C-alpha cells in the first residue's frame, strides 16, 4: 500500500520584502524550495528525507501536512489529495517538529496535551486515557504535571512526539527530531520512533541531516538538495548505485612481492598495499572496482602464487560518501 504519493510536486515561495509586494498582480521574485518531486512512500516503516539545510525537506513535509500550498503538482496522503481533501488528510497525519516554541510554557506537559487533544475532538475520557498511555510510552509519566518551561530539551522533544501521536495518525512526519538532543536522548528518541511508532504499523517520514540517524532508522530514503531528489532507495540500493570502488582487506599467509606484482596487473585493482607483516602473515588493503569480476581473479592469483588467504573483508562505502555523491548530482535516477 502506498501511504504518500507525490507527482511533480513543486513549491516556489514569493519573496516578500516590502509592503507593496503584498499587492496582487505584482511581479515578484520567487525562490524555488521544492522542484518537481515525484515520490511514492510505502505504508509502514521509516522513510527518510536526507539533505543539507535548505534542501526542501521541511517544505515538502509542510505541503504533505496541508500547511503550505503547492505551486504545482499533486500529492496524496493515504489516497487523499492534500489540497482538495485537506480535512481528510489532517485526520491522518501527525507532525513532530524540532520547534520548541509550539507549546505553552506556563502549562504542564499534561495540560498541553489535553489542550491539543481537544483540537482533535477526542472525547474527554478517551483523551485522558490516551494522554496517560502516550506519556508512559515516551517516559514522561513522572514529569507530566511539571510546567513545560521546566522540561529539558529531551523531555520537550518527547512531549512533541507524544503530541504528534495524539490523534493516532497513520502517517507521522518527524522533522529533525534529535537536532538539539544529547547523544543518549537522541538514541532514545530514535529507538522510540523505530520500535514504538514504525513498529506499530505507522508510516514515519523523517527529515534529517544526520546521516547515521538516517542509516539507523530508514528503510528507504531520498537524498534531497536544492529542492530536488538526487537519489532514492534503500541504503544498500544507494550504496550499490554510488559505490564505484571498494576497499578489500585481506590477511594472507606466504604473501610475496611476485604475487603483489601480479595483483597490480589485474584490471580493476586500483591500489594494492601491504599494511602490516608479522609471523609469515601479511595484511593487505586492496582498492577494487568491479567487485564481482575482480575478486575471483585476486583469489586465483593468490592461490597460484602459493599464498593462503586466511581472511577477506569488504568495506562498505560510508553513507557520508553516498551523500556527497548524491549531492553533487552523480545520479538522479532511482536506485533499484
Amino acid at each position, binding site marked *: 500500500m502506498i501511504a504518500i504519493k507525490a507527482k511533480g510536486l513543486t*513549491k516556489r*515561495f*514569493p519573496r*516578500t520584502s516590502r*509592503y507593496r509586494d*503584498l499587492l496582487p498582480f505584482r511581479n515578484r521574485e520567487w525562490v524555488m*524550495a521544492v522542484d518537481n518531486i515525484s515520490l511514492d512512500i510505502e505504508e509502514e516503516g521509516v522513510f527518510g528525507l536526507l539533505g543539507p539545510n535548505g534542501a526542501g525537506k521541511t*517544505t515538502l513535509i*509542510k505541503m504533505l*501536512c*496541508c*500547511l*503550505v*500550498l503547492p505551486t504545482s503538482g499533486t500529492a496524496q496522503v493515504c489516497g487523499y489529495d492534500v489540497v482538495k481533501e485537506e*480535512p481528510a488528510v*489532517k*485526520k491522518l*497525519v501527525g*507532525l513532530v*517538529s524540532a*520547534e520548541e*516554541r*509550539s*507549546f*505553552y510554557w*506556563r*502549562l504542564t506537559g499534561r*495540560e498541553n496535551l*489535553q*489542550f*491539543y487533544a*481537544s*483540537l*482533535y*475532538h477526542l472525547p*474527554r475520557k478517551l483523551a485522558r486515557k490516551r494522554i496517560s498511555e502516550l506519556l508512559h510510552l515516551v517516559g514522561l509519566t513522572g514529569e507530566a504535571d511539571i*510546567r513545560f518551561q521546566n522540561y529539558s530539551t529531551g523531555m520537550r522533544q518527547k512531549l512533541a512526539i507524544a*503530541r504528534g501521536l495524539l*490523534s493516532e495518525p497513520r502517517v507521522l512526519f518527524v522533522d529533525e527530531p534529535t537536532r538539539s538532543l544529547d547523544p543518549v536522548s537522541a538514541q532514545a528518541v530514535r529507538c522510540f520512533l523505530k520500535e514504538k511508532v514504525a513498529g506499530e504499523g505507522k508510516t514515519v517520514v523523517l527529515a534529517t541531516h544526520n546521516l547515521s540517524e538516517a542509516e539507523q532508522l530508514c528503510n528507504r530514503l531520498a537524498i534531497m538538495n536544492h529542492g530536488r531528489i538526487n537519489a532514492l532507495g534503500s541504503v544498500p540500493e544507494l550504496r550499490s548505485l554510488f559505490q564505484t570502488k571498494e576497499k578489500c582487506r585481506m590477511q594472507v599467509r606466504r604473501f610475496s612481492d611476485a604475487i603483489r606484482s601480479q595483483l597490480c596487473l589485474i584490471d580493476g585493482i586500483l591500489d594494492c598495499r601491504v599494511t602490516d607483516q608479522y609471523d609469515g602473515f601479511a595484511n593487505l588493503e586492496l582498492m577494487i572496482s568491479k567487485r564481482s569480476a575482480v575478486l575471483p581473479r585476486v583469489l586465483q592469483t593468490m592461490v597460484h602464487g602459493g599464498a593462503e588467504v586466511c581472511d577477506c573483508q569488504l568495506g562498505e562505502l560510508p553513507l557520508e560518501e553516498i551523500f556527497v555523491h548524491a549531492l553533487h548530482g552523480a545520479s538522479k535516477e532511482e536506485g533499484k
Partner: protein
Amino acid sequence: MAVAVAFLKRDLSQALSYRLSFLLQLGSVFFSVAIFYFLGQLFGSAVAPQLEAYGGDYFSFVLIGLAFTGFLGLSLSNFAQNIREGQVMGTLEIMLLSPTRLSVILLSSSLWAYLLTTLRVLVYLLVGVLIFGASLGKANVGAGLLVMLLGIASFSGIGILSAALVLLVKKGDPISWLIGGASSLLAGVYYPVSVLPDWLEPLSRVLPLTYCLNAMRLAILQGYSIYELRFDILALIGFTVVLTPLAFLVFRKALKRAKVEGSLIQY
C-alpha cells in the same frame, strides 16, 4: 463546545500562573474610575446641555463609556494578538494542522479575553456605584445586554479583519490603529458626540462604537427599552451582518496567502 472549553481552560491556567498581573489588571480599574470621578466633581453641578439626554451626570456618562469601550479595544486587538502570539510561539501551525475549523479556533481563542473584559466591566460598574456613588438605578439590564452582545459582534468583525492583516504583515496593524483611534476621538467615549463640530460629527456615524455607547448609556442610565433603542440596535445589526462574513472571507483569503508564502509561523 469542547474546543471552546479547552481554550478557556488553557487561558485560565496561564492567567492564574501570572496571579499578580491578573490582580493588578483588575486593580487598575479603581484608578481610572477615580480620575473621572474627580473630573466629574470638578464640573460639579455645571451640567453640559449635551449630557442631559443621559441624565446629566458626567461621571456616570464617562463610567459607561470607559467600561464598554473595553470591548471595542479587546475586539480590535485580541484576534490579531492571538494570531501574532500563535506565530511567535509556533502554536498557530500546530493548531491549523488539527481538524478543528479555523473560525472555531479564532473565536475560541478570544473567549477568555471577553470573559475577563466582562469581569472588568462589572468591576468598573461596582467601583463606580459602590465607591463613587454613580447612579444606575434606572438600568434596563436586558436592553443593555442585547446592545453589548451586538456591539461585541460588530467590533469582532473589525478585529478579525485586523487579524487577517497581521497574518500577512506580521506586525503593525493599520485597521486597529485607525478604528481604535477614530473611535476614541469620535464615538463619544469621554464626551457626547454632539460636542463635535458639524463637519466631524458625520464621521462618528460610521463607527459601531458610537451606536453601542449611545444605546448602552440610554439603556443603563435612562432605562430605555429595546423598542426605544431600535435605531441604534438596527445600526449594530447592520454592522454585524456586513462585517462578520466579510471578515471571515478576508481572513480565509489571508490564510491561503500565508500558506502560499509559507509564512504561517514567520513573525
